[in-house]
């Protein structure tokens, strides 16, 4: 064959070979894309399952069953001396009023055992409800009021989820049926969940104590770790000489970011509580421990943000006769802000969900009062979830899921805030 024909044939063969390989390549690309898509779908599936399981178990915690009773505010029980003094009004036996009202609603109940079963339909928290009403307006003493009182958690669970595994006896169920027939049984929005602290009685338990505790802890963590972290990053990046000592510091900071969080809890126990004798279980100590934990994250993110500022801006500032400090604070820092803020908020969102270190410093106790300051004993939301999850009472199951929902909402809000802040700063400097 002539050279020309040989060349043409060879070219044709080459082209065919390329076309064949193209088919293989396209198949491989498609398989890879499918794999990627499958991975994403699997992730979404698990996410969906998680949300579904949490929400389906938790949404019922946001409503509370109430029983309507006619309460007679008997002056002999509430204010026997007639002086309307605060001590008398506080100390009065409001429970008797509830029991009287129940007996009046079900006059056929005579035997003591049955009466006890009847009284158990209404929550012990109803006494506090009545107490608050009288304290707010002593004028109702002597009057009859139709009031909605919190039902006991057994009634609550039965009414929301049915007879399955209910602890109520047949007689109690019959009474409830009667109440229902009289339209004296309803569910309403559970404000207790948000306004009350933790309690042994599930129907009265709320997350307020935990939320306030978390708030104080995050406040302290933010207030300490952000300035310290940013300042450390600025020093290490801009002012520190490059020698073995600063290299050593940098290696250690990177390693600290990977240390398990419970170790920080042990450190907090040993140093803050045993050595400095700070109050146990206080948000102050919790905040200090979480500061140590968040600091490496913030330093690393801030340094990366500082490094990303172009050297041309620095040179322009120095060329104008700005001192190094002026260059850093007037020019570099504003440009590095978006990255720093994002890193800070991610670190804080992590801190919000931390449980292990706080368990070690004692924020796991059963705290009923809502903490008023940073040195009062408190608990945080993740720990509250852990405590409720541990509890054997069925009513706490839905509360656990509801608290998880609240925590997730906070985390999502924080992350959205970080994204919004970052967008806002980026637009200004572009």
């Amino acid at each position, binding site marked *: 064959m002539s050279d020309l024909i040989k060349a043409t044939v060879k070219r044709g063969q080459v082209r065919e070979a390329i076309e064949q390989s193209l088919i293989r390549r396209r198949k491989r690309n498609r398989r890879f894309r499918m794999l990627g898509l499958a991975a994403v779908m699997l992730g979404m599936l698990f996410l969906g399952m998680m949300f579904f399981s949490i929400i389906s178990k938790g949404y019922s915690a946001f409503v509370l069953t109430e029983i309507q009773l006619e309460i007679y505010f008997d002056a002999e029980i509430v204010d026997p001396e007639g002086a309307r003094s605060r001590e008398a009004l506080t100390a009065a036996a409001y429970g008797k009023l509830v029991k009287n009202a129940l007996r009046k609603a079900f006059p056929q109940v005579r035997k003591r055992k049955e009466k006890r079963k009847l009284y158990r339909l209404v929550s012990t928290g109803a006494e506090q409800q009545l107490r608050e009403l009288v304290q707010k307006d002593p004028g109702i003493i002597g009057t009859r009021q139709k009031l909605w009182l919190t039902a006991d958690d057994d009634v609550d669970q039965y009414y929301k989820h049915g007879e399955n595994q209910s602890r109520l006896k047949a007689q109690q169920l019959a009474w409830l049926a009667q109440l229902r027939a009289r339209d004296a049984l309803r569910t309403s929005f559970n404000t207790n969940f948000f306004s009350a602290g933790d309690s042994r009685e599930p129907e009265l338990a709320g997350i307020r104590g935990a939320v306030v505790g978390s708030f104080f802890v995050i406040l302290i963590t933010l207030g300490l770790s952000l300035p310290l972290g940013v300042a450390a990053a600025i020093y290490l990046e801009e002012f520190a000489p490059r020698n073995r000592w600063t290299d050593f510091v940098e290696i250690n900071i990177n390693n600290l970011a990977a240390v398990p969080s419970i170790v920080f809890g042990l450190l907090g126990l040993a140093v803050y509580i045993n050595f400095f004798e700070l109050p146990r279980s206080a948000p102050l100590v919790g905040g200090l421990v979480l500061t140590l934990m968040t600091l490496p994250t913030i330093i690393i993110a801030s340094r990366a943000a500082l490094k990303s500022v172009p050297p041309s801006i620095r040179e322009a500032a120095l060329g104008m006769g*700005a001192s190094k400090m002026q260059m850093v604070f007037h020019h570099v820092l504003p440009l590095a802000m978006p990255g720093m803020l994002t890193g800070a908020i991610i670190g804080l969102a992590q801190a919000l969900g931390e449980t292990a270190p706080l368990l070690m410093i004692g924020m796991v106790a059963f705290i009923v009062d809502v903490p008023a300051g940073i040195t009062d004993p408190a608990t945080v939301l993740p720990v509250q979830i852990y405590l409720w999850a541990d509890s054997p009472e069925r009513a706490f199951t839905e509360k656990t899921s509801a608290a998880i929902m609240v925590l997730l909402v906070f985390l999502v809000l924080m992350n959205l805030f970080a994204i919004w802040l970052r967008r806002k700063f980026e637009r200004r400097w572009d």
Partner: protein
Amino acid sequence: MLAVEQKEAFMSVVETRAGEPDSMKMDELSIENTIGKPLLEKKISMHCREVDVFYGDKQAIFDVSLDIGKNEVLAMIGPSGCGKSTFLRCLNRMNDTIASCQVTGSIRLDEEDIYDPKRDVELLRARVGMVFQKPNPFPKSIYENIAYGPRIHGLTRDKVELDEIVENSLVRAGLWKEVKDRLDDVGTGLSGGQQQRLCIARAIAINPEVILMDEPCSALDPIATAVVEELIDELRQRYTIVIVTHSMQQAARVSQRTAYFHLGRLVEVDKTDKIFTNPGHSLTEAYITGRFG
């Protein structure tokens, strides 16, 4: 290639092409052997004597002595890597930002040694301004770009004075008409040529004595370049300008004296037209006739 090999290879090119070997070897270039007028008698803005610059162990500038006259435009030309930018950056101590860089010798601004550790480098940089190769306005408003210098050096008492300084600087930089209605727009939103003029306006806002320009037009299109060159000519009346340029034509257009640098040494410095029509040293001649670049 090492500097030594480069030198030898290059010398052989000069020898073959020029026809006769150059009698002056590279290592003998010093203040006595630098051709032309490195030292001036008339009014001087900055003098440099026996300046050496080292980056770690590597020496970049060898024994350069040069005077810069008041209100003149001095162009520094030479092939890539010959040290012009390094030398320029010594004049306002910008090389201090590079950790391994060491400068020896004396550089004086108005009889004061600028490397004296007792002197503030910020004050020096306020008197010797710099315009960089790639325009780098601050990502702030046009007004803020110009106002920054006067503000940090405490040159104004109130907003009225500051407004005046901003307007004067923009007028002198030939940018006022184009931006006077949008002083609050961000500086980085301007075109390349406008950004460079903004950088020049920013440099003159603090009323320096000397303006150093490091290839100011290399990132600009020809029209913007022409505008900036015209500006340099006007600025000469108030300021001393030292401009590093890669373009010989630009040096011929804007400067009164031109200095030719080669491999870290000052080879020749003289009036611009003499350098380009009748250079004294064969290396200068080889460069300007395009035998190497």
